[in-house]
C-alpha cells in the first residue's frame, strides 16, 4: 500500500518550498480548506489524513502501531520523504504539533521549521503543570464520544440539514468529516489526551511558531506559554479567537502570522 493511499495524501499548489499540513484530533484534512488557498500560489501544499481519520485507509490502522504518537510520527516522516526532496515546513494542529515534534527528533533532516496551532505537550494536570484536564475529564470525553458515535459504526452518517451559503459542499464529502470507526476514535482520543511529550520539547532545534488562541479550553494560554519557554527556538503568537481551531474561525489572522514567520526563515 502506498503512503498516498494510506494517508489520503493530496498535493496542490506550486513552489520551491513544501508545506505539510496535519490535522488534529477530531476531523480530517478538510480543516485546512480556509488556510491552504492563501499559500498555494507560492508553495507546494501537502495535506493528508492521519490513519484512522477521514478517508485514510482504515485497514492500515494497526492498534499496536497507533497506541502511541510515535506510530503517527513514523507516517509523517514517510510522507515528508515521499513528497519533498527538501526539508519541509510543517504545520500541525493540536495533537499533530506533537506528532511533528516526534517526527523531527526522529528525522531532523526532513524538517525546516514548525507551525504549531493550538499545541499541548500534555493535557492532564501534573503538579505545577496545568494541562487543563484531569483523568476523569478524559473519561467524560470518551463517554460523550461513545454517545455520538452510536450510529456511525453502521452506514448512517449525521444527517445534514443544509449548509446555507456553502452549496459547494457535496453530501459525500460532508459525511466524511469527523467520521471514523468508533473504536479507532476512542483509541485516538486516549492516545491524544493521555500523551505526555514535555520531556521531548527541549530536543527540537528548529524555528517554531506557536499559534495560540486567546481562549482555548483544550490548549489554554498557560500551555502555549509553557511551550514557548521550553522549546529552544520558539515564538508565541496569540490570535484573538475562541476555540481550538483558529485556522477555521480566524483564518486571516492565522495566515498573516504564518506569513510573517515564514518570511523570517531562510527557506
Amino acid at each position: 500500500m502506498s503512503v498516498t493511499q494510506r494517508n489520503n495524501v493530496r498535493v496542490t499548489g506550486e513552489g520551491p518550498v513544501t508545506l505539510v499540513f496535519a490535522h488534529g484530533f477530531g476531523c480530517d484534512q478538510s480543516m485546512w480548506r480556509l488556510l491552504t488557498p492563501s499559500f498555494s500560489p507560492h508553495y507546494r501544499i501537502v495535506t493528508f489524513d492521519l490513519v484512522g481519520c477521514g478517508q485514510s485507509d482504515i485497514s492500515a490502522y494497526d492498534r499496536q502501531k497507533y497506541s502511541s504518537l510515535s506510530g503517527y510520527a513514523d507516517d509523517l516522516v514517510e510522507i515528508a520523504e515521499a513528497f519533498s526532496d527538501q526539508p519541509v515546513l510543517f504545520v500541525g494542529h493540536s495533537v499533530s504539533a506533537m506528532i511533528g515534534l516526534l517526527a523531527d527528533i526522529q528525522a531532523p533532516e526532513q524538517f525546516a521549521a514548525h507551525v504549531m496551532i493550538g499545541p499541548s505537550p500534555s493535557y492532564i494536570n501534573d503538579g505545577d503543570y496545568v494541562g487543563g484536564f484531569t483523568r476523569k475529564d478524559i473519561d467524560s470525553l470518551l463517554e460523550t464520544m461513545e454517545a455520538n458515535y452510536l450510529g456511525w459504526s453502521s452506514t448512517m452518517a449525521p444527517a445534514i440539514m443544509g449548509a446555507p451559503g456553502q452549496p459547494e459542499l457535496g453530501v459525500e464529502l460532508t459525511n466524511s468529516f469527523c467520521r471514523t470507526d468508533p473504536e479507532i476514535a476512542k483509541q485516538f482520543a486516549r492516545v491524544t489526551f493521555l500523551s505526555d511529550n514535555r520531556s521531548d520539547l527541549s530536543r527540537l532545534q528548529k524555528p517554531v511558531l506557536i499559534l495560540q488562541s486567546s481562549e482555548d479550553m483544550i490548549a489554554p494560554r498557560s500551555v502555549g506559554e509553557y511551550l514557548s519557554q521550553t522549546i529552544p527556538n520558539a515564538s508565541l503568537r496569540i490570535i484573538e479567537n475562541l476555540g481550538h481551531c483558529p485556522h477555521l474561525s480566524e483564518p486571516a489572522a492565522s495566515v498573516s502570522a504564518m506569513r510573517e514567520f515564514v518570511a523570517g526563515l531562510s527557506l
Partner: protein
Amino acid sequence: MSVDEQVRDSGELFDNAACGLMSTSHDGTIQQVNQTFCDWIGFPKSELTGIRKLQDLLTVGGKIFHQTHWMPLLQIQGSVAEIALDVIHADQRKIPMLMNAIRREHNGMVWHDIAAFISEDRRAYEREILRSRHQAEEALAEQMRSQRALELAEQRLRLAVEAAQLCLWDDDARQGGRVFDDRAALLLGYAEPRAVSADEFAAAVDASGGPFPKQGSEDSSELYRHEYRINGIDGIQRTILETGRALNSSDAPAKHVGVLQDISEISRQRMAAEDRALFAQQMIGIVSHDLRNPLSAIMLGSEMLLSTSLEANQSRYAGAILQSAHRSQRMVGDLLDFTSARLGRGIAVNAEAVNLKALVDRCVEELSMVFSGRVIRHLHHGAGLCNADADRLLQLIGNLVANAVKYGAPEGAVTITSDIQPTEFLVAVHNDGSPIPRDLIPHLFEPMSRGEHAPGEQRSVGLGLFIVREIARGHGGRVTVESTADAGTTFTLRIPLEPDPVPGASGQWDARPD
C-alpha cells in the same frame, strides 16, 4: 372564534415550543433562549441570556467534543445534527439531550440557531444497546479465542493420529454402524486412504477371533482393548489393536469412539522375542547338560593322569589339559549365568552360613593350582560366619582373580583381602600394574566389555565382571572398583550381613544363625 384568532403569537410559540430553542453568537454566548429550555435546565432566562455560553452548560467531555467536533463541523458544513450531549442542570444533574444547530449570517453577524430535545429514555436505551454490543463483542472475542484453541487442539490431535498412523472411528446412530476415517483402508491393504464401510471392514476381520465387534466390549465407559486380525486385500494379514470407549450422555444414546492401530510389526517382534527366549532356554539346557558332562570327564581324566607317575613332558601336557578344561568350564558357567540374568531370572543364589576365611583360603589354593607360577595371597580380618552362596563366592573371586592375573603386572602378586565388619563383609582383589582406562570404567560391568590389551590367548567372552556384579546383586550387595597407576587396581565386593530382600533377585536367604 375564527381560525385566524386561534393562530398564536409566534413569540409565544417560540417560548413554549415542544423543544428547547436558542440562538447564540458565534462564540456560543446565548442571545435568545426559550422558556422550555430554561425549565428543563432549571435556570431563569436572566441567568442565561447574554451571560452564559452554550458550552458552559456542558460536561467537560461535552466541552471538548464541542470544540473538536461541533465547532469545526458547524464552520465547515454550516450545520450539525443529532449531537448527543449532556447539559448540566442548575442542581448539577446531567440531562441528556440531542441537539441540532445551524450557522446563519445575518446583517454581518454569525448566529448559531440551536434546537434541543431531552432524550433520557432514548439515551438509556442507547446505553443499553451499547452495553449489549460490548457484551456481544466480548462474547465474540471469547468465542474466537475458544475457536482458535479448539483448532490448535484439533491440529495437534490430527498430527498425533497421523504420526502414530492411527485410524479413528465412531459409531453413527443414524447409519447404524461404525464410521471409519479413510485411513482404515490402509489396514485393509489398500495403497491409499479411501472410504471404508462398516460392512466392508467387518468382512475383512479374520473369523478366528470370534464375532466382530466383540459383544459387550463397547458397552462400558471404561477403556477397553481388543486385538484381532484383518485379512487384507493385498494378501497380508494384519494384527489390529482396537482401543475404545463408550461416551455416555444423559440426553443422547451412548456413542462409541475408538482408535485402530496396526500392531502387526509389534506382535511379530514380540513373537520373535518369545522365540529367541525359548531358543536361549533350550541352549541353557544343551550347554548345561551336554557340554558340562564331557568337560567333567576331561578334568577328572587329566587329574587322574596327573596323580600317576608321568614323564616331565606328559605331566606338562596333562596340566595344560586340566587348565584348559577348567577355563572352559568357567566360560560355560559364565555363559549360563549371563543367559539366565539376561532373561530376567537373575543369578540363582542359595545362601547359607559360610566361614569366609576358610572359603577364601580354599579358593586361593585352587586358583594357585590353576594359575601356577603366580603368587596369590590372602589377608583376613574379623571373625564369624557370613550368609552367602559359597559356590557363587568362589565363582566371583575366581573371575576377579582371573582378571587380576590377566590384566595385572605379570610379576606382581594378587592379593585377596577378606574382612568381616559390623554390618557387612567384604572381599577385595588387588593387583598392581597399569590402571584401567578412565573411559572404560563406567561400562566395566556391562556384558561384552573388557580391556583392549589382554593377550590374545587369554581371551574370554567378556562376561566375567557382568557375572561378578550379578552375583553381588543376588546377595543384595555391590561391587566397586578403584584403579590408579600408583595404587594399582582393586575390586571390592561388599555384602551386608543382614541384607534386605532384593526385589526381582531370585536368591533365597536362609534364616541367619542365632
